[in-house]
């Protein structure tokens, strides 16, 4: 089962530019490596990470095989409205992991 960490700064005010940080467990297997018997290890990577505030997409990234395991992704968001942030990681072999956090800048 995947485990994710999300950091949203405290005490944010409307209009602030805030950095949101995320980390998730995932092997990000490139598909180029071979095991000790010389057999190719199949590719198993996250393909996309997206973040929505309420129903609006605010950030999206496509992930590639060169990215290290347990990817750390951070992005900036202008705090214009309150609501719920939904973080979605999707990957190969039906992988999905969703986390939600309240986002509530002071006026």
């Amino acid at each position: 089962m995947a485990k994710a960490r999300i950091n949203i700064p405290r005490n944010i005010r409307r209009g602030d530019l805030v950095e949101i940080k995320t980390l998730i467990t995932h092997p990000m297997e490139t598909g180029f490596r071979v095991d000790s018997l010389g057999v190719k290890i199949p590719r198993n990577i996250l393909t996309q990470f997206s973040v929505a505030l309420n129903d609006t997409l605010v950030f999206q990234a496509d992930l590639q095989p060169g990215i290290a395991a347990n990817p750390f992704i951070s992005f900036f968001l202008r705090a214009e409205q309150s609501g719920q942030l939904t973080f979605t990681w999707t990957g190969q072999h039906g992988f999905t992991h969703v986390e939600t956090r309240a986002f509530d800048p002071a006026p």
Partner: protein
Amino acid sequence: MALRTWRPALLIRRLSYIAGILYLVACSGISEPAEHHQPVEFERTLTEVRSGFDYQAAETQALQQDDFANPGLLWVDSGRTLWASECTACHGEIDAMAGIARRYPKFDEAAARVINLNQRIELCRTQQAILPALPYEAEERLALTVALTHLDQGQPFAVDITGKNAAAFHRGREYFYTRRGQMNLACHHCHEVNAGKRLRGEALSQGQPTGYPTYRLQWQTLGSLHRRLRFCNAALRAAPFDFGAQEYVDLELFLAWRAANLPLEAPAVRR
């Protein structure tokens, strides 16, 4: 957006590694003091202890110290979640377990031998919580081990090397100073005589156990001290022991004593 992008070029690393070892074999032949053939009991052969942290690149150190981005914290989180569902019934909140990790390895009456924290956890998992047995390096065992060890971050080891622990300590100590493998080197040669010298572009540290379980960038995951020791055995072309082998537990007890007052760092980040 910031992404960590790093993967080792294995073949080149292996070749440079062998060259480095040949260099060390040459060095240790010259610089090894004669008295090390017969170590005096309880003599400390390091004058000053230094964490493996000090030998890491600045970015690796920064990653370890980042309360958010240190990837080892993902396992601390999982361990705390596992604790809450499997262990609180008997032990209460995990924070009440502070001060326990630093006392391992130690003699366990039920096991009738010296065991480490990972093995103590597995005893409780299988005999108290009645959960199915898992291999030594299983994610759950690593996660619970690192979550409990993390509670003692900043504190030194407090192992007991007397009484029922003494025999294991002496075996571990002897292992540390005994030459073995095709390279005919002891732990002592790489991690004391040659500490600070470079091997395949990385500085040889004192081989301190204080960061374990550790997130190694080369493993791209969290791993136990035994996983690291297996690497060291392979480095000197000696057959590694199995995970959880008594030889490694004995060595672990000696290493914990040898670490003196160095603070525990788990989860550390190493190259």
